[in-house]
């Protein structure tokens, strides 16, 4: 394996970006160059074997020979034909693009790399040229004149390279006059390369883990429990209240599922502490599950079938435990899937009911079919009904801005709920510039399974537009906290901030809730959830000194 290259300095990246410049010669003749730092390592065979996926073998993306099976071309083209028949989006988006260029400068990877093959239109053309050559009469006859090209190993590698430089964020599809969604095309390319065993290690590892152990990180049941108990220790230290959550408990009213990243890594754990404190304060009859212990789904970055296989656990566990509905934690692609795919993948079991808040009595009609409620929707409803005692001044040392995650924005329409919650638990909230938030939000640059470390330059480049907007509010309003509702954001944005905007930290919305939440019987708070002293709430003894 090639050694991970260190990303260049920030100014080395920005100074070389020139959107007016295009490479010499037509793109069709420009060969793909695998630049270290811009791609992830190929998957180890064991992961593929663990979930019965094709072509497990030792290989490396930097190798000349990817060890594709002899009939790889046939497999690829047959796979493509099959998908053209099964997905209207795929066939339509192959056919109707007029190459108007409206999408060209909307992609964060294009803005951060200046590589024209990262323009959504051209990313799609990489595959469209194959489509023309093998599936249209014009392309078969006129070949290159019709914009068609042969599928060669070189071309296959190019498709791979750029399918893993797309985070499926859908920003381009907002601007496309026909709604062409590059995510749909990237999803198809990734399915096709997976037919030949060409996934990345960073995606395939979590997939195999999640399949067998229930979560991406491979946390075993007792580890999940002890991680959460450690959080409870911290909560006790902060509030004086001992929380005793339950696991795999039958007969609970609610099953709570969140991305496993929040059980393991900073700053995600602080968000999980926020959930624990909130649910305890409400006296919610809920349970965690060690079997359905993953809200996220790296299967979605592999194939739709794998996404379906991994999500079997959610409803199956809800059925086994006999809960009434499910609350899902803060996560981006998880909510794109729970909102748009979950109830299509699997039929919600009969024991589930239309979610109804046991605290406020609100019936979540908008989740009447899938029976899944977003924890922020749940909390927003609580605040609206005045059910929470909040002291937003505990977050006064924070100047907060909110990063809309791509998936919840453009695959769900989730904008006001998090803002409502944040504004009720913080006194200082500032929006980033209009063209960089809500449906026009920029990706963190590390979504869709690209948050590895060997592709750091790609991540820093892809995150440039997001970071740039954060820098704007950091400089203008002194923003020092970037709130979000996504586990990948919580994992990826701290690095991005360190690189582009030092001085800005990252948190989940429920960390802010946990800080502001006044719990019954709690001791005077002197620390925030990070166990750092709360400015303005220092221990009295210190003040006396």
């Amino acid at each position, binding site marked *: 394996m090639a050694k991970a290259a260190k990303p260049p300095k920030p100014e080395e990246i920005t100074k070389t970006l020139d959107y007016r410049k295009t490479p010499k010669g037509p793109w069709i003749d420009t060969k793909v160059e695998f630049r270290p730092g811009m791609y992830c390592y190929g998957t180890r065979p064991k992961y593929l074997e663990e979930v019965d996926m094709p072509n497990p073998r030792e290989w490396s993306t930097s190798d000349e020979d990817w060890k594709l099976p002899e009939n790889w071309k046939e497999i690829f083209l047959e796979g493509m034909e099959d998908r053209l028949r099964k997905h209207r989006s795929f066939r339509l988006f192959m056919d109707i693009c007029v190459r108007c260029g409206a999408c060209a400068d909307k992609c964060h990877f294009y803005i951060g790399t200046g590589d024209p093959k990262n323009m959504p239109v051209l990313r799609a053309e990489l595959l469209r040229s194959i489509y023309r050559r093998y599936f249209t009469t014009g392309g078969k006859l006129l070949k290159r004149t019709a914009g068609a090209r042969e599928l060669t190993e070189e071309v296959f590698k190019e498709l791979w390279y750029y399918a893993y430089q797309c985070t499926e964020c859908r920003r381009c599809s*907002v601007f496309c006059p026909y709604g062409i969604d590059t995510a749909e095309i990237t999803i198809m390319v990734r399915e096709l390369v997976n037919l030949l065993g060409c996934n990345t290690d960073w995606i395939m590892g979590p997939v195999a883990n999640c399949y067998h152990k229930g979560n991406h990180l491979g946390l075993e049941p007792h580890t999940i429990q002890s991680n959460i108990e450690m959080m409870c220790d911290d909560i006790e230290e902060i509030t004086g209240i001992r929380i005793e959550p339950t696991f795999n408990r039958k007969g609970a009213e609610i099953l709570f599922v969140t991305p496993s990243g929040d059980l393991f890594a900073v700053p995600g754990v602080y968000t999980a502490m926020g959930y624990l404190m909130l649910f305890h304060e409400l006296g919610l009859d809920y349970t965690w599950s060690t079997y359905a212990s993953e809200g996220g789904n790296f299967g979605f970055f592999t194939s739709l079938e794998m996404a379906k296989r991994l999500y*079997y656990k959610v409803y199956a566990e809800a059925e086994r435990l006999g809960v009434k509905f499910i609350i899902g934690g803060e996560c981006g692609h998880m909510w794109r899937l729970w909102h748009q795919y979950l109830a*299509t993948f699997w039929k919600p079991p009969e024991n589930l009911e239309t979610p109804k808040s046991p605290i406020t009595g609100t019936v979540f009609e908008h989740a*009447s*079919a*899938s029976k899944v409620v977003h924890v922020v929707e749940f909390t927003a409803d609580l605040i609206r009904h005045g059910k929470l005692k909040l002291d937003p001044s505990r977050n006064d040392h924070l100047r907060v801005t909110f990063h809309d995650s791509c998936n919840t924005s453009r695959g769900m329409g*989730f904008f006001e709920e998090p803002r409502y919650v944040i504004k009720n638990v913080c006194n200082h909230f500032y929006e980033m510039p209009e*063209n960089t938030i809500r449906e026009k939000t920029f990706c963190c640059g590390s979504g869709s399974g690209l948050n590895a470390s060997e592709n750091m330059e790609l991540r820093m480049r892809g995150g440039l537009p997001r970071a740039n907007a954060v820098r704007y509010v950091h400089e203008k309003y002194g923003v020092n906290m970037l709130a979000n509702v996504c586990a990948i954001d919580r994992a990826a944005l701290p690095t991005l901030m360190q690189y582009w905007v030092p001085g800005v930290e990252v948190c989940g919305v429920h960390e802010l809730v946990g800080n502001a939440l006044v719990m019954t019987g709690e001791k005077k708070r002197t620390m925030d959830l990070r166990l750092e002293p709360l400015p303005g709430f220092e221990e009295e003894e210190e003040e006396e000194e």
Partner: protein
Amino acid sequence: MGVWFSFWVVVGLILVALIGAGLLNLSVIFGVVFPYLALVVFLVGLIYRVVQWGKTPVPFHIPTTCGQQKSLSWIKYSKLESPATGWEVFLRMFLEVVAFRSLFRNLRTEMGPGFRPVYGSSKWLWLGGIAFHYSFLIVFLRHLRFFTQPPSKLVSIIDSFDGFLQIGHPHLQLTGVVLFFAALYLFLRRLYIPQVRYISLPADYFPLLLIMGIAGSGILMRYFIKTDITKVKELTMGLATFHPKVPEGIGVIFYVHIFLVSVLFAYFPFSKLVHLGGVFLSPTRNLANNSRMKRHINPWDYPVKVHTYEEYEEEFREKMKMAGIPVEKDIEEEETEEKEQEEKE
């Protein structure tokens, strides 16, 4: 890539009509056979495409949400950008088709001061697109007067509005000129915007040049190289009533015009121009954002291999028990069961 190729193809097509209809006097071929053929190819081809898309399933519910979802009753949701009902989807689609709403959002990314990208409003493509498509639509409708006798009221009204400036004789009709210049604008932006030039194919230049040829030959015919309009109408009415006849003495410019139109019609179903039909079928735009309210069914859904709870517990039962996590099946229970089983046997 391919500007000159497209240019020479269009020039070639014009020459074919000039030679065929002018020198070789093949007026029946150019005036009757080609138009009929083109129309058949257009209709059959376009219907085939639309039916093919329509028959392809939409396995997942994937609208692109560009506004607030319908969730809690006190949060106002965006009916147009995140439609929750069929009617709201209709409105979203309507504005998409008649007003190019998504394109209206267009922004331009530029490297601003201090090497920081900035995003400014950019409406030129939208404006060019609107001018192009609407003038084309009106020109198309205006031409219906050649195919009905007497011309329908609507067509006459359009005609008189189009010529409201009352310049020259016959009155200058604005849309023909707008069509030509809008197509020219769309063509020139392909040449001069580096990114757009980089992505452009012959299939992008050709239709624009062809349409400029059509608009250009139409304008020439109407204002400069006068053609006998009554004879033209005799021919077109013959086509419309399926009693084709070709009057003598229609200028060759007419045959150039009608031949380019025929080529456009025949080319249509095989090209990107099918976006005309495709835009209505786009699943990111024509679905309501209601997938948690109404279960979307995948018609080709199939069983997949899963990892069940039983398999999971089998692997971790001891660890779960040690941690005090409830299990379905106690090992001791299991052992007694097995013993009982053995005893029975």
